[in-house]
């Protein structure tokens, strides 16, 4: 039963994920938002709003040409990197040192989480060691504690 349900979920997930994935206009939109206008306006290629912009029209034409030629995403990015320089890519996706850009923030977060967990454990241990006898948790004591919390809720 569970196996069937799992299979069904998997099929539905894959079907939804694949829907529309190969649409050429969607791909143009996606890639156009992963590229920058190189005129110095610091805008995403498809969002550059300068009428008569010296660069964006040519870049968009290049993107159309690359898609018509059937290039993969990596090939399109490589073309733009060679022609306009790495600044034509809206994010570092060339592999190698570019990968460090993606790892950095998550490594920081992960390191921080581990550090906090270790710190919390250390503090907890120290506190437990310093607390000689734990008071028994009786229903009366719990009820009293909850009542106190309720009645003093407006002030910390």
């Amino acid at each position, binding site marked *: 039963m569970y196996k069937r349900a799992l299979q069904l979920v998997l099929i539905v997930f894959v079907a939804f*994920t694949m829907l529309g994935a190969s649409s050429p206009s969607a791909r143009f939109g996606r890639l156009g938002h992963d590229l920058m206008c190189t005129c110095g306006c610091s805008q995403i290629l498809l969002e550059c709003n300068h009428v008569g912009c010296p660069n964006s029209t040519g870049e968009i034409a290049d993107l159309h040409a690359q898609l018509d030629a059937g290039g993969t995403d990596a090939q399109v990015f490589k073309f733009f990197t060679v022609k306009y320089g*790495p600044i034509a890519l*809206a994010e*570092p996706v060339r592999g190698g040192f570019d990968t460090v850009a*993606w790892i950095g923030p998550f490594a920081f977060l992960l390191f*921080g*989480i581990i550090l906090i967990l270790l710190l919390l454990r250390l503090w907890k241990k120290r506190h437990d060691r310093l607390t000689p006898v734990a008071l028994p948790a009786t229903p009366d004591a719990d009820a009293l*504690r*909850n009542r106190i919390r309720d009645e003093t809720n407006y*002030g910390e």
Partner: protein
Amino acid sequence: MPHPMPFFGSVSLLLALGLAVYTLLAGTLSLWAIAHGRALAVAPERIRETARRAGIASFIAVTAAAFALIWAFATNDFSVDYVLHHSSIALPWYWKFSSIWAGQEGSLLLWAWLLAGYGFVLRIRHKSDITLHAYASTILAGVQIFFLLLINFVALPFAIVPGGIGPADGFGLNPLLQYAEMMIHPPMLYLGYVGFSVPFAFALGALMMRYPGEKWIAITRRWTMVAWLFLTCGIILGMHWAYAVLGWGGYWGWDPVENASLMPWLTGTAFLHSVMMQEKRGMMKGWNVWLIFTTFILTILGTLLTRSGLVASVHAFAESDIGTWFVWFLVLVLGVCLFTYLYNRDHLKNENHLESLVSRESSFLFNNLVLLAACFTVLWGTLFPVLSEFVQGSKVTMGAPFYNRVAVPIGIFLLFLTGVGPLLAWRSTSLRAIRRNFVLPCIAIIVTTLVLIIAGVRPWSADTQAAGDVGSSIYALVCIALGVGVITAIAAEFLRGANVVHTQTGKNLFESTILLTRRNTRRYGGYLIHFGVVVMFIGLAGSAFNQSREAEMSFGDSMNVGGYKVVCQSYSEDSNANYDSQFALLDVYHNGKLITRLAPERRVYFVNTDHAQPSTIVAIHSSLENDLYVVFEGTNPDNQKPIIKFFINPLVNWIWVGVVIVIFGTFIALVPPLKPSTRRVEVPANFLSPAAPPLGSVISTGAQRSGETPVFRSGSSAPASPGAPHV
């Protein structure tokens, strides 16, 4: 004397520098003598007082210099190089006034002026703790000296043009800066940046003097909140400016200069949270000191990024070698902070330790981690191009897609903690309390998710996939559902507290909520700030559903976009002294009814010069549901028809509404709480009974001004004898 006012301004700045140097030297000497019990020719306390007065006088001197620059702009004194480059005769007076901070030199003068202003207030209000204020004043004088050195010797606001005689007219103000927010956005931002110097000075001073207890935090809390509020307003005004002026349809482009303002805001927010742990539990002392040090350092780093040309930005000031000065100042500040910390770190030992993993303390730790991770992400993204150039020899772009992939999940985690943190009790939270506090928010999250899915927010739908927005759609769904959950949690907290007050006083729920908030302004003001932030997050999530269309529109042409029908009534051209313009008049219909007329415009400033500059005036029809954002992009050179771009930006107004709530909440948190005043009452002897309150019970009259029933509080002292006189 050919240039009396610029001369007056220059002399004032030199005088201000001299006074700031005296404040630093005399302050240091007197504090050293007091701390070590050394006798001087003059009593150290008197020297300390002269240092304070010199600090106050430095504010007057910088004010005089600022006045001189205002005068130069008002009188079109184009012999002053700064005025020549940022003003013109045709410029309206209000833009002339705001031109003061339009360039490098003037904005540094504004910085020095605001810093001297903060110092002035600090030095005037010194009586709450004279020694601590003296330390803070001396440190602040050190910061003042740096900025006064810059405007005296590096970026001179009163420099005279070569030959001493200016041309008949100036070059004018950059058209992108001729917008209402220019009047208020930079001063607000600078008030925020500069404001963090004050808690920094107090923290460093308290550490230097090994200040006993946590009173310095209570003293600096308002300073920190005020600086945080100004920085928040500055950032949001900048967002609104970008949205309404730049014409690309968005409000945040992750530009390095925008990032520079966000970083100290994030660490400042972390400080405002974690400082509570120090106040209430004596924990995180070293951490808090470093948080405020980091916040100050980030304000200087942000200024370095903006002014040095280190990173490419559309907002940055002209490239200059001023960056070297900032680098050395950063090194100096870091060195002083590090030395002071290492020398006094034994003073920062925690008084308590964590008792439970599920507690308010641990939620604060995670809150700080997430805020710092967000700050690190922004800093990383801002500086990575420089790092990449160093390692690979070529700069890369860290555009919006990078931040959307990395910063948005961190932001959502932060939103989650915004809801969870306040529901956990200090020290430890019982399982029962968790169940009680979390049930309603969880239900709200599930219901909202279902409603959104039914309403059409379906990341797995073919339309969303075709638009390539699956990730944004998922984030938006999670963000809005989580946001509603957090709002429910906040509302439940208010309701629970109000019920207690209602039980005690018999007031209705609304009055009880008001009284509850007045009794603990800090806590409930904080909840309101959280509420505002959640509303902003919901507004930000709306960007996942943005749409845009572009069309040539002639007389009578119509266009349907996002439920609106737009009809072009006319288009024309105009000319005035400051600029030429092209515009279209567009009637907007919704459900068949005419709701507004929009006039998107494109202006060209400095028309008959070699530096003509175009600018966009966006037309926006706003509602809580969405913004219809219309840009006049230009005209088709073949047929002269206007090219109009339409954006439908959902929920943008929620961001601005959220900010108003945040401001309101901050004001409430800044108001001192209503302290229950107490009075002793006579109790007749026969009142004594086992069930009655003890003799001499203190009656809380905290809300007596509004006439509610007094409340008995137990555990108070008894009078000397029954019938004793009132005390």
